[in-house]
């Protein structure tokens, strides 16, 4: 069992409550099985053979959005998300994953996206064949949530790439990075999908791989190297880092914007995992007129909508709606006019539940509008 590699986390968490108040799902869901202690108790029982992965326990193990706040808060170096991911892989190995999880996997394998939408519609909203080149310096990896749900983010990114005169291409056969599969426990399928995508990327022989999706960013930065998948030395950047660099180089020059207060929402992969905190703030600082109002919960302690891999909200729409509502309330307390994220999944979730006066934008949308 893979969870046995996480025995120290499981044994520490099973009787510890110290991160309950920051656990995103725990705070919203309110169940004792939601917090790392609950997960630790369950996993301890499974580990010791005192319980099986019954449907109830399996459901509980998919009720974690992998936001990583517990891990950030923990002073004992425990990693509940890793233990939960191992459990999901064990569950899949036993063929015990819930039907809803299997459906997402089938969609990913059949259509290359978690929604089961036709692969040929992926870039429908973005325009014609001039987006593709056989070889280019920069590959822009769009990602499923951006392509199918938030194409205006890709449009904005294309505008920025154009303004910077970048030699870029999209991948004609772009599919998911495979990350959602690994987060759901399908490690073998995830690897196959990753290898296919990596081959597509290598084929273009780019120097730079840039994406507007933090989940994809983490897949390229963390998962692919961990799986030994070779991206032929290509540099991987999230759009926030890339645009920050372009502005610094003077390759794009945002125009002065009307006065407004903006607040920026950090996320799991871009923030907590890769510590890309300053770049988005520098970019926003480059717009004369825009004032940044920080949330009390910012940077590594930022509230989460549960964006990792874009799968939690597909399984738990009601819960994730309430998680988004909490983020919106928190952002509204800053008195900001606009809440800016750098994640298509987050933007989608916030838009669905926006009951505030806040305008919601992706970082690259804000930049593109000022070009």
């Amino acid at each position: 069992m893979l969870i046995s590699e996480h025995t120290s986390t499981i044994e520490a968490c099973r009787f510890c409550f110290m991160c309950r108040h920051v656990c995103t799902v725990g705070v919203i869901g309110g169940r004792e099985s939601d917090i790392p202690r609950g997960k630790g108790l369950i996993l301890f029982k499974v580990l010791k053979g005192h319980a099986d992965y019954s449907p109830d326990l399996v459901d509980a193990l998919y009720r974690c959005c992998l936001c990583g706040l517990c891990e950030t808060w923990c002073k004992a170096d425990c990693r509940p998300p890793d233990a939960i991911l191992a459990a999901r892989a064990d569950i899949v190995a036993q063929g015990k994953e819930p039907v809803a999880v299997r459906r997402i996997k089938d969609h990913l394998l059949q259509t290359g996206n978690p929604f089961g939408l036709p692969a040929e519609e992926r870039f429908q909203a973005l325009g014609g064949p001039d987006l593709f080149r056989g070889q280019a310096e920069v590959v822009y990896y769009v990602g499923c949530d951006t392509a199918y749900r938030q194409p205006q983010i890709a449009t904005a990114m294309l505008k920025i790439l154009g303004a910077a005169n970048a030699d870029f291409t999209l991948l004609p056969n772009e599919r998911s990075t495979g990350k959602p599969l690994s987060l759901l426990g399908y490690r073998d399928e995830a690897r196959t999908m990753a290898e296919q995508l990596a081959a597509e990327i290598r084929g273009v022989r780019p120097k730079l791989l840039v994406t507007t999706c933090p989940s994809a960013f983490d897949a390229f930065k963390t998962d692919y190297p961990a799986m030994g998948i070779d991206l032929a030395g290509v540099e991987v950047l999230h759009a926030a880092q890339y645009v920050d660099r372009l502005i610094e180089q003077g390759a794009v020059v945002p125009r002065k914007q009307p006065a407004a207060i903006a607040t920026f929402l950090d996320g799991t992969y871009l923030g907590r995992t890769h510590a890309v905190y300053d770049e988005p703030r520098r970019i926003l600082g480059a717009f004369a007129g825009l004032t940044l109002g920080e949330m009390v919960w910012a940077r590594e302690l930022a509230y989460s909508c549960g964006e990792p891999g874009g799968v939690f909200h597909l399984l738990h729409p009601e819960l994730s709606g309430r998680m988004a509502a909490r983020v919106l309330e928190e952002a509204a307390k800053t008195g900001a006019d606009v809440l800016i994220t750098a994640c298509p999944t987050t933007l989608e979730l916030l838009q669905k539940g926006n009951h505030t006066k806040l305008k919601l934008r992706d970082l690259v949308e804000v930049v593109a509008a000022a070009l």
Partner: protein
Amino acid sequence: MRVPTDSYLNEFLYTELADVVGPENVSTSQADKIAYSCDYYWIPELWIDRGRPSPEPDVVVHPRTAEEVSQICRIAANYKIPLTTWGGGSGSQGGALPIHGGIVLDTKKLNRILEIDKTSLTVTAETGIIMQHLEWELEREGFGTMHEPASIGCATLGGFLAHRGTGVLSTKYGKIEDMVMALEAVLADGTIINTLPVPRHASGPDLSQLFLGSEGTFGVMTKATLKIHPLPEVRRFHAFVFPDLHTGLEAGRQLMVRRLRPSVIRLYDEAETRRLIRRVLGIDKEGAYLVFGFDGDRDLVDLELSKALAICRSFPHEDLGPDLGQDWWDHRYDFFFPNHMFHLPQAFGTLDTVATFANIENVYRAMKQVVEEQFPMARYIGHFSHWYEWGCMLYARFIIDDPPQDAHEAAQLYNRVWDACLRAAMQQGGLLNEHHGIGLKLGRLMRELYGPAYTVLENIKRAIDPNNIMNPGKMGFQSR
């Protein structure tokens, strides 16, 4: 009584509960049965560790209003099944354990802040709010309850009320029972009652105090109004090491009887100084580490601090200065993460007790003697963390590094240590507990503690909960 697990009657119970709170707020999931079968008490932890089956709830409900709580109480009364209130489950006494099955009522969705009265400096909140969430919201407005327990992130307001909990700043701001203005509670028959709006009056006995410390056996507290305070301009700390515990105790006593108003005094015995203070704070000293702090307006703090320093310096001492005191404050919650806390396979218990200054050192030494003489497999350590005008609380601990593997033997040894230590403490004028409560753990000793007065408590319990539905088997009250 309990609805047999395989009876179709359970379906009716479930339907009625779901009708009140909505199906998403009722759980019979095995995941929750496991998660609610264990709180922070060592015995259920041991049971889980050894793979033994533990008592579990039949159903967990998450009400969102006092009215829903009231209807749940009526359902429990109708079925005559136990109703155990669960806040954060962080209690160390087994108080929230559903030892007879039935309904667990989780309060965490009763979590709204209803009013911050900036004129009178009070806050009214529902009792399921996580204490840290309440404190963070108050801090945004420039206030705090100043209730800062180590479990501030783990536990609910209601849990603290139910156990008469305490925080690190209690020496100035009081225990939770000192902070309460008024309460709303739901009784076993579903009646929703409110206690009087202010705590100081001569209009009969104080009903709020009846519910404080009642551990869910008298009813479910659903709302509380607490005093709040402006955030202090400064908070200053200072640390000393005294050659021995006795000197430290005398210094601490002087700070109190000279009627200074420290927000905190914490004195660690030689063993804890050697072990915990070194490990968590990296301060490598022999003797008894004492830290105190003052908070408030800068000039007043400076004045009190100078008087406190003079008192401490009048004893043989090593002055560690303000930084090593500030360090303690900055890391005050670190002690409770698993890398620093005692945990299984160790057996451990917090023998927290309280007595007058005249008795407290004797209480400390009596328990120490019991552990050392009767339980050679155990260690004894302690600190003194909450100080009053008349005495202080002792947070003593026993630790058995290698308890028996057999769960029965381990539990029996555990209970023997508790009984022997607390009887020794009571003989010297100590109480069973100061801020963690009684729960399942210490119920059997309540009659010894109270003597004939315990009948008064039993009669109140019988009058207020005639069917013995509310958290049966806790605080020494009748089991089922």
